[in-house]
């Protein structure tokens, strides 16, 4: 087996970690598992030990106390990469990147969870994360009956994403986005041949073939002529806006927006008018949209246009609590992921409100699954609620 190797910046970070523990109780995984090795501080310590064990000849000779790499790998993958540790970090270390780079190292060593190597194969062969037929990616248009054009010379391209395209529970988000785009009379299009954005590969550590996906999707977007790409999926937004420039070595010539950012603009410009209700709602910040993507105020302004009774949860914005489904955790450890989702739902319901909004198809799904046991709780995407209020759904 090859040695565990991190890029130099991340290597410095694992030594720089002060082990102060400010991150520990912020971590959703630690709060469920309750053992330090599953906390960011514990993981960093294990990575440091692994690095040290590899380092010196003498160290190898005297050390009888070597780590079992499988135990370390499990702890690195039992993480939603939600980034809440970074907000708490005493030293402001870039921890989400460190987790991703550690996974990359493990993936290249061949010790990553077997499931994720299968996910890589699936994505590369089927062009979607579920292993579904690539040709049926646009079937949601037929199911929902919405008018969704595929054309050239559009101003806006809608990047739907795997989860929204294939997952029945949240295809309504795609329907809502398409309906609103039509409602404002936007010149928009779906992509002709959208592939998985590649974000699942990035968070799995399986980055060697990521470039293929990025190049294909950029080409597909450019062929529409659109200068704005919108998506309802925060993971896709991160991929298109931040991971593609890094992986391609250049910034593609289009603006990438989460749909709530566009809604915020249109509401401010008066293109969307909706009567404000008094229905109480609360809002779950998707980690990849708020903390990792910096989109915090825009969804709030959209919600404030919808209702006068917006009750914020205690954990919100940059300090929002994770739903447990990021970082492929829902695939690699569904039980842990579901427990975190229940914790998050409970914290949202502590507001006393029964309508929980979010702006991410994966968060929508996880929280809705957690809400099955709860009575009279509705989890709905912000975009869908707006479409309903506009009479479009």
């Amino acid at each position, binding site marked *: 087996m090859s040695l565990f190797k991190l890029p130099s910046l991340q290597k*410095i970070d694992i*030594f*720089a970690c*002060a*082990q*102060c*523990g*400010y991150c*520990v*109780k912020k971590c959703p995984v630690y709060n469920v598992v*309750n*053992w*330090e*090795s599953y906390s960011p501080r*514990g993981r960093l*310590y*294990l990575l440091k*030990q692994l690095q*040290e064990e590899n380092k*010196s000849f003498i*160290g190898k000779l*005297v*050390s009888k*106390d070597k*780590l*079992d790499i499988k*135990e*370390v790998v499990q*702890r690195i993958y039992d993480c939603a990469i939600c980034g809440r540790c970074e907000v*708490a970090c*005493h*030293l*402001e*270390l870039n921890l989400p990147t460190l987790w991703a780079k550690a996974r990359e190292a493990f993936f290249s060593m061949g010790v990553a969870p077997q499931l994720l190597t299968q996910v890589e194969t699936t994505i590369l062969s089927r062009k979607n994360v579920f292993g579904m037929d690539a040709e049926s990616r646009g079937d949601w248009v037929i199911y929902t009956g919405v008018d969704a054009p595929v054309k050239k010379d559009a101003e806006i391209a809608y990047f739907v994403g795997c989860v929204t395209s294939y997952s029945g529970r949240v295809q309504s988000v795609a329907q809502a986005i398409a309906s609103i785009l039509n409602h404002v009379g936007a010149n928009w299009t779906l992509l002709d041949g959208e592939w998985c954005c590649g974000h699942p590969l990035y968070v799995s550590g399986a980055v060697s073939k990521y470039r293929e996906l990025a190049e294909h999707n950029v080409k597909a977007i450019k062929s529409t002529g659109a200068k704005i790409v919108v998506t309802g999926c925060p993971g896709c937004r991160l991929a298109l806006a931040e991971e593609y420039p890094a992986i391609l070595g250049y910034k593609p010539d289009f603006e990438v927006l989460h749909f709530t950012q566009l809604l915020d603009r249109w509401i401010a410009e008066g293109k969307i008018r909706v009567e404000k209700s008094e229905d109480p709602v609360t809002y779950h910040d998707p980690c990849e949209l708020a903390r990792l993507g910096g989109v915090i105020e825009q969804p709030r302004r959209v919600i404030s246009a919808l209702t006068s009774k917006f009750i914020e949860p205690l954990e919100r914005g940059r300090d929002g609590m994770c739903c447990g489904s990021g970082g492929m955790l829902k695939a690699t450890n569904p039980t842990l992921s579901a427990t975190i989702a229940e914790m998050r739902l409970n914290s949202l319901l502590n507001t006393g409100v029964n309508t929980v909004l979010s702006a991410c198809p994966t968060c929508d799904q996880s929280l809705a699954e957690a809400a099955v046991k709860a009575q009279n709780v509705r989890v709905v995407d912000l975009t869908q609620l707006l479409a309903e209020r506009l009479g479009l759904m």
Partner: protein
Amino acid sequence: MSVKQELLTIVGEQNITDLHAERKVYSHDLAPLPSEVSWLFKSTPDLVVKPRTKEQVSEILKIANKYKIPVTPRGAATWGYGGAVPTKGGILLDLTGLDRILEFDRKSGLIKVECGVVWQSLINLLDGSEWRLPVCPSSSPSSTVGGWAATGGLGYGSLKYGRFVDNVVQATVALPSGEIVTIDKMSTPLTLEQAFSSEGVLCIFLDLTLRLAPKLEAEEPFLAYFYQLQGALKAANRVLELTKPDTLVLRAFGFLKARRDKPIKSIEDAESGAILFGLFNGSKAEVEGWLKAFRDIALEFGGNVRPSGEAWDEWNERFYPLRIKKWGPTVLTSDVLIPVRALHDMILYSWKLGKESGMDVELEAIFTSPEHVLYFPLFLSDERKPLKYLSHTAITKKLIDEAVKHGGRSYGYGIWNSFHLKKSEPERKKELIRLKKQLDPNNILNPGKTFEARSKFGLALPASLYSLFLDTLWVFGKVL
């Protein structure tokens, strides 16, 4: 039935582990240890146990006595002297699971909390109430109430409200035998005063009843930059004379300056700037008066008083003194409690040490009373260079020796500073040994620490040898 199985019946399967990765994570605290330490101490525990009730703690201690197994209590492990690090393996007791608020009397301001409650959660809890914490540690976002009780109890607010122990009415502790007792200022066999700062060698704090401070009419932080450290020092002394701050902190920058070729003969040779910040609380008139006095003092000594917004920013950053660590990436420090009059000389000495060893240094001083200051210089080192780093670790001894010369002492002892207890506090050492023999005849609770450094082989390391070793390391480091 094995020890593990016996413990398992007490705490349940979810709260005990012997997984290697887990045990490794619980083998250290804030300070990175050179791997050679494993030759002397077995810092990796055999089992990690997470009790959820005080009765479980009691039962675990009884089993430890039965089999004569060492027990190391651990809060959030935010200390750097080895207090929560095992010396002979055994059971590591993770006390963070005891984290309930047991009682809060909003009329009297008394709050009873379990030992694993994190200070920040108390701050959050009191946010909307009429009460505030009188004192809290600089590591409040993660450190626990029980951990601070065991390890020092001086920090923000001490200048006005005294030590943590002065703000505690009573506590429930587990004695090494497993007996659970309530202690206060007059209790036997242990008083609050004896239990506090006993670093887990005499008892385990289970819960504490804190006397909160009422929120006062006005609360306002203050901040001034000083081009010269000397001015900040003089201003700090004058602030102590003329005002009554809740907290007063002096932080001196100038790190990277210690490498200059010029010798450092006076503080100004370090060309360090400094900031003075803190908090006033009291009646509106008092706070306004003190703020005006602070402005006048700062101006007199060449300070640049910053606006309220910036002062609040600095105040809100008070729990993040280790930000500079990323430039190390390792920090070496030793907190010493020294007379205020010695601060000038200690700063000068720190600069000299930094210069000699090639380590950059940032200085922080929290005034804990008009007479005393908790001083902790942060020296930047690099543990990735093992030989150099090993020689750098001798700096803690140098600092403590110098503090003792000035009538000060180490803030804590743990494993690494235990050699200094005799010189710093000879009477306290005698009392600790007497109580230890009386309360822990099997020597199972946090053994080999605080008043001795006893290796995994059962031998106490001689202070003179240790002293010689560190002095040699220091000289060796200067040659490197």
